[in-house]
């Protein structure tokens, strides 16, 4: 992840998954009772794609279909992905709690209704502009964009640092 002026760019290799990936599939309940984040990463996507944890490289981008992260509210799910090296997740849309959790722990998530991405393609995400570029196939996609407060939280590295700095949410009342 790097910042170019105000732009917030993430560049990485795509891993492709389908619809309705639930949080039990991302990290099974039996592994969630820990504060050791490395041990979460060791079991990430275990029941869905046992080899993912060996293939993933720091900076990679997960690309999924609709309703990514449905089910349990476990924040261990985005933490497992982030600790395994995933730099961002793109999905057609996310389950509500996963979306909040990802932003809160500083894992960028972008909703792209329609995309043309193959496994292994290199993508460049501009969070501020809300744009995804497939560098391999040389095509651009529009994203739903993120409200300013969420971009601020991501720039702070998550809600913990954001609140440490600001003490409260900066949303116009």
């Amino acid at each position, binding site marked *: 992840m790097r910042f170019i002026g105000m732009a917030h760019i993430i560049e990485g290799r795509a891993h492709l998954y389908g619809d309705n990936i639930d949080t*039990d599939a991302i990290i099974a309940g*039996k592994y969630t*009772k820990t504060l050791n984040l490395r041990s979460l990463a060791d079991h990430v996507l275990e029941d869905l794609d046992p080899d993912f944890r060996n293939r993933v490289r720091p900076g990679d981008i997960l690309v999924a279909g609709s309703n990514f992260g449905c089910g349990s509210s476990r*924040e261990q799910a985005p933490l497992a992905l982030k600790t395994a090296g995933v730099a961002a997740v793109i999905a057609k849309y996310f389950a509500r709690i996963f979306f909040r959790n990802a932003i809160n722990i500083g894992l960028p998530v972008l909703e792209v209704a329609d995309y043309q991405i193959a496994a292994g393609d290199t993508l460049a995400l501009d969070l501020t502009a809300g744009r995804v570029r497939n560098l391999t196939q040389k095509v651009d996609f529009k994203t739903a964009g993120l409200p300013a407060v969420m971009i601020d939280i991501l720039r702070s590295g998550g*809600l913990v640092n954001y609140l440490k700095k600001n003490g*409260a949410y900066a949303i116009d*009342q």
Partner: protein
Amino acid sequence: MGQTVAEKIISAHAGKPVYRDDLVVARVDQTMASDTTAPLAIKAFEGMGGSRVWDPRRCVLVIDHAAPAPNERVADLHAMMRRFAAEQKCRLFDIGEGICHQLMVEQSIARPGQLVIGADSHSCTYGAVGAMGAGVGSTDLAAVWLTGRIWLRVPKTIKIEVTGSLRRGVQGKDLILTIVGKIGIAGATYRSMEFCGPAIVGLPLSERLTIANMAIEAGAKTGFVDPQGLRLPYEFEAVVADSDADYEQVMTITASDISPMLSRPHAPDQVVAVDALAGKPVDYAFIGTCVNGRLEDLHIAAEILRGSRIDPGTRLIIGPASRQVFRDAVNDGTVEILSAAGATFIPPGCGPCVGTHNGVPGSGETVISAGNRNFKGRMGNPEADIYLASPATVAASAREGRFTNPLNFIGT
């Protein structure tokens, strides 16, 4: 302009009238975290620079997801929660006291009109008593502990009008499985659901809790059961939607058409009638969880199993939703009937439903569970197939050793 229940409750907590899609910061009445989510929340709270929670009377901790501790790592996390609760002077329910959502309602903590934020996805259960319950993760919860507030997008609302009445032996579970099957696992994402209509009015609290509990299984942020007919052990003023409230969608379901239902592996919205799969052998039957571990659920199981034995090829595990439920079931003879029929009781808690302990299925086994989720691996073994059903269907299937329509055993 008329408001939905969610719009009314959020307005009252944001200090101004709000409508769907507004992004607001709202005051929170109660919070809840379990042993899956509290340890990370405590770490996040300390990371935010928090020293005292904003209001200890509004912070509830529950040790239920892996209780009693199955290993030393979990035992240490439980100790961390006890320490935090003692330091912060907030309420902690320890092992065996019950499942978080059951306790929040049974102990009259979640009440009508409140905004309750729980670090557990089934926090939508509180909509059974007219509270807006919304599930969040650990860091969000820590932020509420720190500030007493949360940011929310006001949800659109889907209204579900249930006409007629449920046949005896057809439970709230069959109704909500039918609804989740129709709407789909993501059909209510970011939405509020309002369950109303003649079939809802006559339902006891236990069935209302079952219905609200599974709103999340359609992706909903929250869900409300119409308070008409609701009885609580205290005086309350119910929040009802305005007659000209703006609904995104209105759906009608005929309750009398509903038969006992099953949800097939590996998602709660894969719903079929029990009759479509009748006769399929069952290895493991489970009654319990925040959706169906209440006294009324044990009663209907006892009605089906009274004087008989479960099939020798099947095991039946029962986890009461709380210590109070267990004691009531001991005192009225229900535990004796079920135990004599071959059921194994486990301590009140989440146990098998989250795959931590107290009943992990074997590879290749078929499980019929009165729980709310059947994702692959949910109960701790990705090689097991989990079917969701009502407690009546689970009891009937345990008795016969195969998927069985409970209406065969229910007197009319």
